[in-house]
Structures are given as C-alpha cells and as structure tokens.
C-alpha cells in the first residue's frame, strides 16, 4: 500500500467549491422552476441567488481550467483516439462495476497522478467539463439577460430552446449529483476517494514504477 498525490490543492479547492455551488444552484433552480411545489425562499430571492452563485461557479470553472491548462496533469483529460482500445477499456470497467466488484475483483484501472480517471470517468469528465458545463454557463448567461442577448437567442430558436437545453443539462446534473457520491465510495475502501479529495493523497494497492516516482515528487 502506498500513497499517491492525486489531487493537488487547486483541484481540491475547485472541487469542493464546485460541489457547494452546484448544490445551491440545484436548490435555487428547483425553487425557481417548481414554485408550485416548494417554498424554500421567494421566487425573486431564488433568482437573485441563482444568478450570483452561477457567476461564482463560472469563476470557479476557470480555477480548474487554468490549473489544467498549465499543468502536465491535464493528461488525465486527454481523449483516447483508439476507439477499439477505448471500447475495450470501458467494457472492462463496466464489467468490473457491474460484476467483478461484487466478487472482490480488483479494478482494471491503475491510478496514477497522470491517469487518475478510469476510462469511463475520463470520458464522462471530458463531456461534462468541456461540453455540458460550458453549455450550461452559456444558456444560463443568455437567460440571465434575455433582452441583451436576444439576437443570439433568436438565432438558436428562441428562449424556450435555450431554457430546454439548460433544464436538460440540469436534469443530467441532478442524476450526476446522486451517482457521483456513491461512486466515490467504490474505492478500495469506502472513504479512500473522499479522503483523497480532502488530503490530496490516495492509498493505492498496486504500486507501479510511475506511481512510485510520482509519490516521491508530488505536484
């Protein structure tokens, strides 16, 4: 068993800030959309909080973006262009989560600071961080001041189209917020991944030469 420095400080700060802001956005978003069902706060306050927190989230996104733009650890997000290899790796990971994990098998993914995501995570985070989240920011900003951006809003089909995209991504994020904490407990111990996002260090069972090297020189 050895420790790997998987999550540098900027990533941890970004992650937890992101988590808090996400939850506030979901709560206020639900209040805005379902005024007939919930009464956490007034509609107007929900809108105002939603707008301010959304801008904080956009700012926080740039913490993540700038860190990875200037860090060689961005390899964790590099796409795998060999489709066959990607498909095999994804299938192996799905097989592990769907079957092997119950039999006590080891995860086919071997973590290291430059490859901290398993193939499924890598693909998900590529879509999430580079497509869904920016798209959510754009649709949110358009609705923040519809009149100011009316030319662009009309061009993409109107405010209803923009809102529908925003809500579809919101629905995905709601699903993600429920799945993500559970998946975080599927490390070699239930708290391994969670501790790693607090301390930065993850206990790993198999030591690879690359991992040893990384442990000696943390980022």
């Amino acid at each position: 068993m050895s420790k790997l420095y998987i999550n540098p400080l900027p990533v941890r700060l970004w992650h937890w800030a992101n988590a808090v802001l996400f939850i506030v956005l979901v709560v206020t978003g639900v209040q805005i959309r379902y005024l007939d069902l919930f009464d956490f706060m007034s509609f107007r306050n929900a809108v105002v909080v939603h707008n301010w927190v959304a801008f904080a989230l956009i700012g926080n996104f740039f913490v993540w973006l700038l860190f990875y733009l200037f860090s060689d650890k961005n390899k964790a997000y590099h796409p795998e262009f060999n489709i066959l290899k990607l498909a095999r790796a994804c299938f192996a990971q799905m097989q592990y989560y769907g079957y092997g994990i119950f039999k006590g098998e080891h995860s086919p993914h071997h973590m290291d600071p430059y490859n901290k995501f398993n193939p499924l995570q890598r693909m998900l985070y590529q879509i999430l961080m580079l497509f869904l989240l920016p798209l959510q920011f754009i649709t949110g900003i358009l609705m923040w001041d519809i009149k100011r951006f009316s030319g662009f809003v009309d061009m993409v089909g109107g405010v209803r189209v923009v809102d529908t995209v925003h809500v579809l991504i919101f629905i995905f994020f709601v699903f993600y917020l429920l799945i993500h904490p559970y998946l975080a407990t599927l490390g070699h111990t239930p708290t391994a991944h969670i501790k790693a996002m607090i301390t930065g260090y993850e206990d790993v069972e198999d030591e690879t030469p690359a991992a040893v090297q990384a442990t000696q020189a943390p980022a």
Partner: protein
Amino acid sequence: MTRIRISQAAADLPRRGRPLLGAALALALTLFLGAPAAAAVSKDTALSSEDKVCLDCHAKPGLRKTLANGESMPLYIAPNGFAESVHNSSGCEGCHSDIDVKAHSKEPKLVKSKREHSQGLMEACRDCHKKTMKQYEDSVHSAQVQAGSAKAPLCSDCHDPHATRSAKDTTGGDNVACQQCHKGVSQAFAASIHGASGDEALACKDCHRTHNIKAAAMGNHLKDQCVSCHREVATSHAQWLPNTARHLEAISCPACHSPGTTRRVNLRIYEGTAAAQQAAEKVGVPQFIKLANTADPKGSGIDGRALWSLLQDFSRNGSDTRTIVRGRLEVQTGIESHSLAAKGTALKDCATCHKQGAASFQKVTVSMAGPDGRPLRHGATDGILNSIESIGSVGGFYTIGSSRIKLLDIMLVMALGAGILIPGGHLVVKLMSARKRKAAAAAEAAQAFKSNESTDRS
C-alpha cells in the same frame, strides 16, 4: 350632439374672402376694449352675404332631407355656431362647391345615405387638411373604412364641420368624440389614475394621438407612450425585477398596473427575427383565417404542432424571412387596459405569473395584424405553452415555472429515480455479496501465504 375640435391644421386654413374691414374692426376692438377673450374677438365672426343666402333656408331648425335609404338627414346649420367656427372663413362654398346655387332647390341632389354623403365630403376636408388626412389614412379608423366598416369614423363623426373651433380655442382635454364609440373604455379611463387626476388628467389623444390612431393591441406604440412620460421605467423596475428589459418587452403595462385584470398570452406572428412589426395580412388575402382554420379544423384551438405548420405555411407563402412567434402577456379587454391604478397597487408578486397553473397563462391566442390594422386572433389549446411540441413553434415565448414543458418534469423524476435506484441497487448487491468477497479475499490471502512459504522453502 356635441362636436369637437382637435386639429393641427387649423392655422393653415386659407382665409378666403376675409374683408379688410373686419380685420381692422377686430384689431380696434382688441386694442381699445382689451377684452380677455382676445382670441374670440380676433376672429371674423361675420357671415358673408353668400353664406347668409344659404342660411336663409338652412338656418330653419326643422329642415331635413329624406335620403335614398330612408334616413332623414338634418340640413339645419346653426348660424352662430358656423359664424364662430374656423370654417366660416371658407364659406359654404369652400366645402360645397359642387352645389349649383341656382339649381339647388329645384333639382334635389340624390344622396344614398348619411355615411356616403359624409364620405364624399371628406375630399373637401382634404383640400385644406392634407397633412391631417394623410395621418388619418394611416390610422386604424381609415383602415376599417377601407375594409368596408359601416361604423368606423369619418371626419364628420368626430368633427362638426359647421361648428369646428380652432385648436387654440379648445381645451385639448375633451374626450367626447372618442366616447361616442368607446363608451366602456372611456368610463374605465375616467375612473383610472390617468382619468381621475383633475387638471392633470390625460386626454385620449395624449396616448392614442388624434388622426393617426393605431390599433391599440398591435405593436408596442402604446408602451412607448407610457415610457415617454414615465422615463424612469427601466431603472425603477430594475431595482426589484430581474431580467427587467425582457419583462418590459414581453408584458404590456396594464397587465401589472391594472389591478384585478384578466390576462392572456398573445402569440404574435412576426416575419423575421429582426422584424419590429408584426406580420400583417394583405388586403383581400385572408391567409391567417384560412390557415388557422386549416390548422385547427375542430375549432378546439391551435396546438404546438399545428402552429409550427402554420408558420411554415406563412414562410412558404411569399415571406422572404422565417416567420416566428413572439409572445406577450397582456390584458384581455380594452376596458382593462384603461383601468390603470396608482403605482402602489401594481402587481409585484412573481408567483402570479411564475407558478404552474397561473391564471394569466390559461388563455392563449395566436394573432397577426388584419387588413384593417387590428389583430386577427385564433385561440390556442390549453397545453400549447407546456408541450414539447411547442419548442419550435413557441420558441419565442417562455415563462419560468408556468409554461414549463411537462416532458422535462417527467425526465427529472426519472433522473431522480435512476439516481436513487441505481446506487441503491448496487449497494444492496454489494452488501449481499460481502460474504463471498470476504471468502475470496481470505482464499487469495491463503494462496499468497502458501506461495510465499513455498518460495521461502525453495
């Protein structure tokens, strides 16, 4: 019937046959008597000898003429009223030049109806009031006349040509002419904040203008009128209203400022996304009614898909640009739009509109400008604002909460279910298989121990 004034062009009237003596007398009276009603005295109130000849007969109160349609048209002209009117200077012949004085009483002129008579004499008005007539012809009233309306006002319906005073001599606040046709609206207005404010009360023309009156339900010209006085609207609303500009664009002022009003969503058809004006029917080409009836054969209202087809048909039928819909929340009647109340009573509760099932969103109509300038409307189905099918057709209108798409709600419930059931199911299987896993781990450890031992022995 009291007749009125108005009139921009009164000062431009040619003063035909003004006797110099009259002018000199008026000047003398003004200078020496110093009467407060200088304007009145400065007028030439003397009747010409030609006019007196006409009035020999037409000053008899009972004088009437039976027209071809059976109507009885009064031919009485009050001499004093005419003498004091601005048209005195033109004389009878100024407008009635077609009358041959010698043959007039011997060969009665055939007149079909009062309206036809009045309509014919509008050309006489045009001789002097060219600019005003041009404005009138650009109005909804004129458009209605052109479209064959038997009620839309002609010049003489608002102005008594034989008693018209100069605009300078009128108070400018008189709404009597409008009240003749718009009685309910006038009563509502009189009780409103704008109608009941004493000397500062507005007149109809202050918002609707006098001759170039546009259909109230079309465009945004009336909102512009509100903003022309209430210039602080954008900043005052921005202090509490998120997305102020959008609210001001998509909601008519009375929708919030007329308490207790009933609202509706008006899906207005526009040609092109950049177009400022609503699409309008061409005279004699009743596309909207025809296409709307085709889209809604049962008469139960246009739904999202039918509206999409309707817009496609419009785009195909000669429009250069894409035809789209923009929504507006507005009051349902003209009476409600004139019942504006004090600022403090205005609607400020977001839930009135943003809660699902909000009364304001239960009535939806689709509209475009008719050939007479007024909106043509066709009802929409109840669910048009909440249907996934409306994404394309009603893309230009959306209200958070109240017009949310039901399918997205179902998807959210499914996402919640999946987000709970998938991890929950996985956890249950994981707990159930914990023994097997422990046994496998023990076997693995034992195997590792054995292999270590054999390695040590060797």
